[in-house]
């Protein structure tokens, strides 16, 4: 699991590499909340291209991020969802709740 931050259109991209499971969702949650609540980044992009798997604890971390960004009036944008990650979003009925784009170009243009 690796989380790296880099600047992007109006905000910051967090590039996640690895599986977001019970072992690693706390790190994702921490990085997200730091970006949203502490740094008050207006637009946080989560690049999930290199995420093979996400479990319900990972989804919980994303939901926490979403709630924090809604509270602050900022945006959380996801992109690069693999088939497996997309499936889990659908099982959770969250595919319409999150702002989801296909790739970085689309996400940053949004």
């Amino acid at each position, binding site marked *: 699991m690796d989380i790296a931050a880099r600047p992007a259109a109006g905000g910051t991209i967090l590039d996640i590499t690895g*599986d977001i*499971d*019970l*072992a690693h969702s706390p790190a994702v949650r921490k990085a997200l909340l730091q970006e949203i609540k502490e740094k008050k980044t207006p637009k946080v992009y989560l690049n999930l291209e290199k995420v093979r*798997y996400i*479990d*319900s*604890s990972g*989804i*919980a*971390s994303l*939901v*926490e991020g*979403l*709630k924090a960004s809604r509270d602050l009036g900022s945006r959380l944008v996801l992109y690069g969802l693999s088939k*497996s990650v997309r*499936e*889990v979003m659908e*099982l*959770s*009925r*969250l595919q319409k*709740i999150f702002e989801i784009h296909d790739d970085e170009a689309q996400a940053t243009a949004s």
Partner: protein
Amino acid sequence: MRGRVSKSRTTRRESKQPNDEMLLKLELRSNPEALCLVRATVERAAEVLHFPEGDARAIVRSVDEALANVMRHAYGGRQGLPIEMRCRRWSGESTEGKQSGIEIVLQDHGIAVDPTKMKGRPLNEIRPGGLGLHFIRQSMDVVEFSRKNGKNQLRMVKYLTPTPRPAGSEGE
């Protein structure tokens, strides 16, 4: 002359001895780092039994969520405690008639499951948590919790829906 020369299948051989239906038994500890190992193992087990990819993902997801629940709830987050997983080729009867598939049984020595708590959150409430059991129940055909000899047991079965093999695929 395009044609399939050979297709190795693994389903015939051991039909007589029920013992041989065991694919493997895995003993792990309640450390979240072990989850990715188990996922890899279960993914291949599903592959060996010829589950389609989507079903294989569903099986992997169910085992992962069930193990995460054991670690978080039955063991209250304490690490280093034993969990067992047994994985076998299953065949039997379902309401739809004769079935084959995969059976996965998890065992732990944690606190007994409280049946009144064993439900996820309503899916239309947007809040963190409460999704694992939904994932499991949506993915598996049989989900049975029980307690025996001071151990929690979760038995899950996924049926293998026979996919018609493409015509001419049995070359020899």
